[in-house]
């Protein structure tokens, strides 16, 4: 061993070596008998300084422990074998926690659905208040457009129709494509019902942009050709 390594070993014995340096030295300590013998003598020096009377210093305990453990498996092997033999423990709090979590999710869902169900006008006061506080140019433009629309539209208490959501159109169209492409393999009755349902749920299909036009007309044509 060189002097630097010996110095590290001495510091490690005193628990004064940085953890990063300990890793490498611990590996060497566990494998090198000379390093281990030096380590053992450091312990003997400490025992003599502390005047540990009645303690034998020729390391009999270490030898006996090592011999006693020689027949035992290494701990990593014990850990590897343990899960197979372990019996599952019943924890009373698990079903309670599960029920609580489910109730929480349900409550959040209900609140979310209720907020979604409110008409768009319900949020208008808050929006107007916010926009008057900081009238940015884009907000002002939007406000004037709204005012123009309100001036041209007749006064009415009829609830305005809910706007179409683009995200609802695309899946329905793609589903229609899929049904048309596989129509040869489906029952005529179910195909007709499904296509009728699609056309009903997609009111703007015929007047939507070019991409959705072609499949939609194909759907209509196909529906007419197979009126079952």
């Amino acid at each position, binding site marked *: 061993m060189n002097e630097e390594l010996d110095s590290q070993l001495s510091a490690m014995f005193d628990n004064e070596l940085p953890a990063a340096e300990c890793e490498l030295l611990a590996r060497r*300590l566990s494998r090198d008998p000379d390093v281990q013998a030096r380590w053992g003598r450091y312990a003997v*020096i400490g025992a003599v300084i502390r005047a540990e009377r009645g303690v034998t210093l020729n390391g009999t305990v270490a030898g*006996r*422990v090592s011999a006693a453990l*020689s027949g035992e498996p290494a701990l990593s092997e014990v850990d590897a074998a343990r899960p197979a033999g372990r019996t599952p423990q019943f924890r009373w709090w698990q079903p309670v926690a599960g029920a609580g979590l489910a109730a929480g999710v349900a409550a959040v869902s209900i609140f979310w659905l209720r907020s979604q169900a409110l008409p768009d006008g319900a949020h208008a006061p808050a929006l107007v208040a916010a926009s008057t506080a900081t009238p940015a140019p884009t907000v002002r433009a939007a406000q004037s457009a709204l005012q123009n629309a309100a001036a041209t539209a007749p006064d009415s208490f009829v609830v305005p129709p809910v706007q179409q959501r683009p995200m609802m159109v695309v899946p329905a169209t793609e589903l229609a494509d899929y049904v048309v492409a596989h129509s040869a393999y489906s029952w005529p009755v179910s195909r007709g019902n499904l296509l009728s349902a699609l056309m009903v749920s997609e009111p703007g299909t015929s007047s939507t942009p070019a991409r959705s036009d072609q499949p939609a007309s194909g759907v209509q044509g196909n529906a007419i050709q197979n009126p079952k």
Partner: protein
Amino acid sequence: MSADASDLSLVRRVQRGDKGAFDALVLKYQHKLVKLVMRYVRNPAEAEDIAQEAFIKAYRALPQFRGDSAFYTWLYRIAINTAKNAVVSRDRSPIEYNIDRNSTDNDESYDMQGRMRDSETPEGLVLTDEIRSTVNAAIDALPEDLRTAIVLRELEGLSYEEIAEAMACPVGTVRSRIFRAREAIDRRLREVFEGGLGRAEELG
């Protein structure tokens, strides 16, 4: 830096299946543990048996050791419990005297287990005495600053930082002084160990 970093690195190695790392931990703490157990039992041989049992229990329990406390603190608790249990079970069971021996009236001359440990052999005891006298002589021969540093560390249990404060020097100097003190003592001690072992073989 963790105060227990070196012990913890050895413990982690044991947990990964390296038994050699556990040997290092036993070498480091065997004397302390025997001394601790001797608060409960007077017989050194019995104390060694209990210390051995405590180490084996510790090895088997190491998978549950998470490092929340220092390794020695954890080992200390195991040893105390093992010693208490040993005292209770010894008090319950009748003492088996070896009646074949002539000098049963002397407390130190009989072996309760009917066998003699290595540490009790004349060679073992002589070796222990020789080790003590060699280490003490080597410490006396050390320069003052090295002797103070090693004694503050081993006898008073001060950290390097505390020793540096006490000796008004940098921590690096403390580390170097303790290392040089150990090296000087170890040179003399190595000769005794090698000579002692050789003598034991001759006698055996």
